[in-house]
C-alpha cells in the first residue's frame, strides 16, 4: 500500500490448549497440547481490509482473540502502531484494546439482553470519555446514524431487534470507543444473505469514511472476496497462503486453498 509502517503487526503467535499443570500430567509426563494457533505472522496496514479465511478448527477465532488478549497467546509478539500489546498492563492495555474492537458472530449473544441499545452505546462512550459522550442523545444517535439505524432503536432492548439490526448495534458499540482496527469475527455468518450484503457494505463504508482497518474473519470465501483487499488462509493453526484476494483466489498456490475453493458451491 503506502510506504508507512503497518498498523498491526503479529509475529510468531502461538496458542496451545491442553497444557495443564495437573496431577495427571505429573504422573504421566507432559500432556501434549493442541496448537490452535501455530506460529502465525501477519500485518495489517492502515485502511486495509484483511480477510482471514479457514474452516472450523483452523484457529482463526483463537487468533483474533489473541490480538486483543481476550485469550493470552503463549508466544509471539503483537504490535499496534509499534506498541507492544503483550507487555501492556492496566490502563495501557485498556487503551490498546480500545483501539482494536471486536464484532462477534452471534448477534443474539453479543449484546447484553438487559440493557437498552442507547445505554450500551452511551456506556462505551462514557467509560472511555469519548468526545461528545456527555450529550447522551447526540452521541447515541450519531452512532446509530453511522450504522444506518434510526434513532428510535436507542430505547429498544436487543430482543426486540432482528439479527441484522443487532449486528449493526454491535458495530456501533465498537465504533463508540473510536477504534482504529475492527476485528469482525464471522460477523456476518449468522445473517441472512440479503442482510449479509447490507452489513458487508457497511464495513466497506466504515473503511472508506472513517479509515478503520478491518480484519475480516469468515469461513466463506465468497464473503471474503466481496470485502477483503488481501486474504490469509488458515488451516490447522497456520497461515498457508496470503496475498491480494484476487491473486489468491484466481491462482492459489497452496493445495488447501485449492480444496477450499473447489468446495465452494458454484451455481
Amino acid at each position, binding site marked *: 500500500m503506502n510506504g508507512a509502517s503497518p498498523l498491526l503487526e503479529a509475529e510468531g503467535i502461538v496458542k496451545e490448549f491442553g497444557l495443564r499443570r495437573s496431577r495427571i500430567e505429573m504422573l504421566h509426563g507432559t500432556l501434549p497440547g493442541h496448537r490452535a494457533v501455530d506460529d502465525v505472522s501477519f500485518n495489517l496496514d492502515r485502511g486495509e481490509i484483511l480477510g482471514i479465511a479457514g474452516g472450523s478448527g483452523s484457529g482463526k477465532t483463537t487468533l483474533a482473540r489473541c490480538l486483543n488478549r*481476550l485469550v493470552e497467546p503463549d508466544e509471539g509478539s503483537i504490535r499496534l502502531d509499534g506498541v507492544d500489546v503483550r507487555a501492556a498492563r492496566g490502563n495501557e492495555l485498556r487503551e490498546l484494546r480500545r483501539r482494536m*474492537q471486536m464484532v462477534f458472530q452471534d448477534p443474539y*449473544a453479543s449484546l*447484553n*439482553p438487559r440493557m437498552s441499545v442507547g445505554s450500551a452505546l452511551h*456506556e462505551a462512550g462514557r467509560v472511555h470519555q469519548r468526545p461528545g459522550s456527555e450529550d447522551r442523545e447526540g452521541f447515541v444517535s450519531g452512532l446509530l446514524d453511522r450504522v444506518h439505524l434510526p434513532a*428510535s432503536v436507542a430505547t429498544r432492548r436487543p*430482543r426486540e431487534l432482528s439479527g441484522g439490526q443487532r449486528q449493526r448495534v454491535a458495530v456501533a458499540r465498537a465504533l463508540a470507543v473510536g477504534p482504529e482496527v475492527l476485528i469482525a469475527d464471522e460477523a456476518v455468518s449468522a445473517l441472512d444473505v440479503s442482510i449479509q450484503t447490507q452489513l458487508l457494505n457497511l464495513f466497506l463504508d466504515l473503511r472508506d469514511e472513517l479509515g478503520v482497518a478491518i480484519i475480516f474473519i469468515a469461513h466463506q470465501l465468497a464473503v471474503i472476496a466481496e470485502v477483503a483487499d488481501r486474504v490469509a488462509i488458515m488451516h490447522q493453526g497456520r497461515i498457508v497462503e496470503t496475498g491480494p484476494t484476487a491473486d489468491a483466489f484466481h491462482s492459489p498456490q497452496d493445495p488447501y486453498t485449492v480444496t477450499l475453493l473447489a468446495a465452494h458451491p458454484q451455481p
Partner: protein
Amino acid sequence: MSTSEAATRPLGAVARPGRRARSRPATPVIVGAVIVGLLALAALLAPLIAPYDPNEVDFLHTSESPSWSHLMGTDDAGRDVFSRSLYGLRLDLAIVLFVTYVPLPIGVLLGSIAGSFGRGVDSVMARVADVMLAFPFFVLVIAIIAITGPGLKGVLIGVPIAGWALYFRLARSEMLVLREQPFMLATTGLGYSRTRAILRHAVPNLWRTALIYSTLDMVVNLLLLASLGYLGLGAQPPDAELGSIIAGGQPYLLSAWWIATLPGLLLVAYGVGVGLIGDGLSDGRLRSASA
C-alpha cells in the same frame, strides 16, 4: 411504505418470525400471587383486624372450639388462636423475608465474583461455600443458635449464614457460563473494569434464577422457622409464632385439635401459594427461552 421505514418498524413483542406469542394467561402465578397476597395482607393488617390481643389470656374460656367469637377457637390459656395466628404469621413472614433476601444479594454477588475470577479466588470461595453446604442446613442453623442462644437473634443470624452458599453456587455456575458469552467478552474488549462487568452486565442477567429459587427458599425458611419455634429455639414465648403455636397445641391434638391444625393450614396455604408463583415464573422463563 418506504424501504427505510420497513427496516425500522418497531417489532413489538414478537420479535423473531416463528417466535410463539403467549396465548394462555399465567394462571398458576395469579392463583399463587392471590394466596400469598391475602396472607401478606392479613399479616400486615394484623394489628387492625385481629379481634383480640394475641397474648391476652382468659382462663374462663380455655380450649374453646371455633365459633363466631373465636374463629379458630382458643388455646389452653384462653388466648384467641386466630389473633395469635395473624400475629404469628406477621412475625414469621417478616423474618422469612429478612432471612431469604439478605443472603440472596450477598450470595449472588460473591458467586458472580468467584465465577468471574476463576482460578485461585474461585477455588477458595467455592470451597468455603462447599463447606457450608456440606452441613445439613438445619443442623448448621441450630449450631449457630447454640452459640447465640435461643431467640430470634439466633435465627436472624443463623439462617443467612447458612443460606448464602446456595445463592453463591447458583450465581457462580451461571457466571461460569455467562462469562463466555460474546457480550461479556465484549466488556473485556471494550476495556470495562471487572467491577462494571460484574455489576452492570453479569448480575442483571444472573439474579433472576436466584429470584426464582428464592421462592422455594422462602417456603423452606418458613418451615424452618416454624420448626425452630416448635422446638423452642426460635421465637420465645409469649411471642406468637406459628411454629410455637403449633407446638403448644400438640398435646391437645385429640381434644382441642384446632390449636395446632388451623395455624398449620396457614403454613400450608403459604407454601402452596409461593410454590405456584415460583413454578409460574420458571415456566414463563422456559417458554421464552425456548422460542
